[in-house]
């Protein structure tokens, strides 16, 4: 049963990446990647929820019976989302104004549920917590990458409004790559999300193939 932390980290960040390998959580992925900053914020909020719910499910895994496990998982994820939502609204209000609309979307994200079902329900607390953290960070990585490509091609900027998300000290991240008039609006609109996600999924597989790894059938084992 024991899974090494190195393996967990590798799985979450790259090999079994929630978006680029398993193609889970497509709803927030498409909706929130209009800019790199939005993708980063959504990813981090999801990571917090995933870590907390993973740890909780692993803690209670002896009590959750097979028949009621799905409602209990949804209950736990929804409760964690609400706690994050209220806490951010109260203490990180500027960030909340940017992300607030999208935090409730985490409940409908299949990725936390898939990880609870396939990992946290079988493993001890700490590895489950780690799995939540690294799966969440992998999600963040993918969302930030998709957001960065869409933002550069669509608006000509990179990490615009990053200071709203991370604080004024991070305003150096806000870069204008090319003039706004050169932006392709379609990349910001929904079709851009599908296009960029598709190309990045292909890109990841090409890197894996070049590295001599067998291509896994993404998603097949996780749902």
């Amino acid at each position: 049963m024991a899974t090494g932390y190195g393996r967990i980290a590798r799985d979450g960040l790259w090999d079994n990446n929630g978006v680029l390998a398993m193609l889970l959580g497509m709803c927030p992925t498409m909706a929130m990647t209009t800019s790199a900053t939005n993708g980063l914020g959504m990813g981090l909020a999801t990571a917090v929820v995933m870590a907390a719910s993973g740890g909780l499910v692993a803690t209670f895994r002896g009590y959750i019976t097979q028949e009621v496990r799905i409602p209990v998982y949804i209950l736990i994820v929804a409760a964690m989302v609400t706690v994050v939502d209220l806490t951010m609204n109260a203490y990180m209000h500027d960030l909340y104004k940017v992300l607030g609309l999208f935090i409730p979307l985490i409940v409908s994200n299949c990725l936390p549920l898939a990880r609870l079902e396939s990992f946290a329900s079988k493993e001890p607390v700490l590895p489950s917590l780690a799995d939540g953290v690294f799966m969440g960070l992998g999600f963040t990585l993918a969302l930030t990458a998709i957001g960065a490509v869409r933002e550069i091609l669509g608006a000509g900027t990179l990490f615009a409004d990053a200071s709203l998300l991370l604080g004024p000290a991070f305003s150096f991240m806000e870069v204008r790559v090319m003039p706004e008039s050169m932006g392709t609006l379609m990349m910001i609109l929904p079709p851009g999300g599908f296009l960029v996600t598709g190309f990045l999924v292909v890109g990841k597989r090409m890197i894996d193939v070049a590295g001599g790894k067998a291509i896994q059938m993404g998603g097949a084992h996780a749902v």
Partner: protein
Amino acid sequence: MNKNSSLYHGLVLGAFCLGFGLLLAVTDALTAKDIAARAMEDRQNSLAAVIPDAIHDNNPVVDTILLDVAKDEGLTVYLAKKDGLVTGVAYEVSGIGYAGRIKLMLGVGADGRVLGVRALAHKETPGLGDKIEIKKGDWIERFTGLGLGNPPIEKWKVKKDGGQFDQFSGATITPRGVVGAIREGLVFFDARKQELTQPQPPQKVNEVR
């Protein structure tokens, strides 16, 4: 108890619901005060943009009246007062944009001229319709100082419709919605001027002095 009985599953689920329900209640109790304070600050900020500080000595956020605009529908009006006299009012207006309703906060002076307009919420296309946000451009500032006589009401339209306001490149529907909403807001002010600028004492709600 038999671990396979429906009763047991029900109890397990019920226990989790109770536990997490309690957690949510505690979180809510801990954050409710801060969230209310933040909401108040937000409203203060959005009002500060449409009512200049110089024209009032009260707090418009809590100095409000409720006007009936339709059956069972009230409109909260924020009053700016100086020395007890109403110098300006602010209220929410809305128009239909390209992707649903555009909500605006409109500030009107006692003389019927626009003190300021800000977009509160909209779902317009990023990069096109969102230029109505002050963050993305100063287009919304052009209404400040204008009123129903200036320009005349038939000119309160975008240029494409024969009015005097510029649409922005690539988007006509969004500015049309905004200009229409402001026009309606000013017409409303004109029609209810008496109630707005000389509110009767019984209508005052939550007045803090």
